[in-house]
């Protein structure tokens, strides 16, 4: 039996002085295999032509369609309406600047994060392009690749109570990136460098192990394991810091 969905959507355009935040509810006949991406497009084609939301890949690859679906962050293009109750509520991701309706600016946030944590490979020297690259063991390559699957969708920021309370917190997305470069032998940074980036309450020591990121990352990245690994490493580095200081005197 096909259902009629009742979809409540957060509507507001902060750039329009006449706009006020509100919830708009539309009815929509459910179709087989319908995703929220399809549902939202149907609504935009019919009753809500000015509805804003973001999509690019429609396949869970680009990370642009993250939104709060019945209270929990997720990718709209990967969410089947069949998996949801008849009443669906959609909100923009909290923790990011609102563009309009369901569209938020994760890009600026992610760029600032990348600059702050320097999330790129820091080579020890200019690579000699005529030489073979240093080999990487398949196991390690696999591990790095696993962490590289992050699509910067921002769900872990919306899922993290710490990030919601303390906007300066780098969140699982940032910490996962440090874990990725810490694994990578091509990156010349050591733990003293990592500690400078995340050895504080905006970094790894701010994480309160609430596990929202681990539970709600749509790419199912092994975030708890990365956070614990970084925490152990940074705690060790912090301890080392005490002894090093004495050495220098």
């Amino acid at each position, binding site marked *: 039996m096909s259902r009629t969905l009742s979809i409540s959507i957060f509507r507001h355009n902060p750039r329009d002085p006449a706009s006020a935040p509100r919830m708009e509810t539309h009815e929509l006949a459910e179709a087989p295999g319908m995703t929220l991406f399809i549902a939202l497009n149907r609504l935009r084609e019919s009753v809500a032509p000015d509805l804003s939301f973001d999509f690019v890949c429609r396949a869970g690859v680009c990370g642009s369609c993250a939104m709060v679906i019945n*209270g*929990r962050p997720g990718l709209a293009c990967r969410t089947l309406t069949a998996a949801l109750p008849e009443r669906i509520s959609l909100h923009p991701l*909290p923790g990011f600047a609102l563009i309009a309706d369901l569209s938020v600016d994760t890009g600026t946030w992610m760029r600032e994060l990348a600059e702050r944590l320097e999330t790129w490979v820091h080579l020890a020297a200019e690579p000699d392009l005529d030489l073979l690259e240093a080999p990487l063991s398949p196991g390690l390559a696999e591990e790095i690749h696993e962490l590289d699957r992050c699509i910067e969708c921002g769900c872990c920021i919306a899922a993290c*109570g710490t990030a919601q309370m303390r906007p300066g917190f780098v969140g699982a997305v940032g910490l996962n990136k440090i874990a990725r470069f810490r694994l990578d032998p091509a990156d010349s940074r050591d733990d003293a460098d990592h500690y400078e980036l995340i*050895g504080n309450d905006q970094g790894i020591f701010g994480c309160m192990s609430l*596990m929202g990121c681990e539970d709600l990352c749509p790419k199912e990245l092994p975030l708890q394991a990365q956070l614990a690994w970084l925490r152990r490493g*940074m705690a060790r580095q*912090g*301890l080392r810091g005490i002894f090093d200081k004495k050495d220098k005197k």
Partner: protein
Amino acid sequence: MPAPATHALPRVSHWPAMLDLAQSLSGLLLALFMWFHMCFVSAILLSEDAAWIVARFFEGYFVFGRALPWLVSVFVALISSLLAVHALLALRKFPADWAQYRAIAAHSDRTRHGDTLLWLVQVATGFAMFFLAPVHLYTMMTRPELIGPFESADRVWSGFYWPLYLILLFMVEIHGGVGLYRLALKWGWLPARNTRDGRRRLALAKWALTAFFLILGLASLGAYMKLGHSHAPLAGEPYVPSWLRAEPAR
């Protein structure tokens, strides 16, 4: 011109790491201590003599041949300091203003996420212990000689401490259980290779331990209340173990 005297400044502080370790270590020690504590308290379930032996043991009675209650005072002072350190560090994590409180409450409400709720439970139970734990610690520190089967029973019943102990029991067991669970997640001590299985097992162990210590605690408190009730007419009379009692006059 001579070069100015320079000395290098530290690049970063190691304090955030220290504070994080201290938070975890103080929580771990407190939680382990609370388990031992509960085992000692439950001696009353064995017999009044057993409770007397445990109480005198900590006063060094079986080492020095006489009770030295100040040993208990010193130990309680140490535990109180540990609690103070732990609470001070925990304050860093409390929602600090209306906006933060609003953010975490709305977030928890919205996501209905189990572990986030558990953290809020930890904040709430920790906050309650701010006020409840010192009452208990102060009495133990200042009147260590009044620990014993009759003495404690009289405090529980005639001294009307049982409501305090009843609330504290739930606060400590829930807070400590959740704390140990999060400690394992935080530092990555999981009883399985993958996080999902490890977490499920941890959660099971956590609830089993919490239930065990709650039942043990309720039984012990019940035993003290019963004893205190029947001993109420003689409240204040110290306990004398069965083998030291004078033979009843013939």
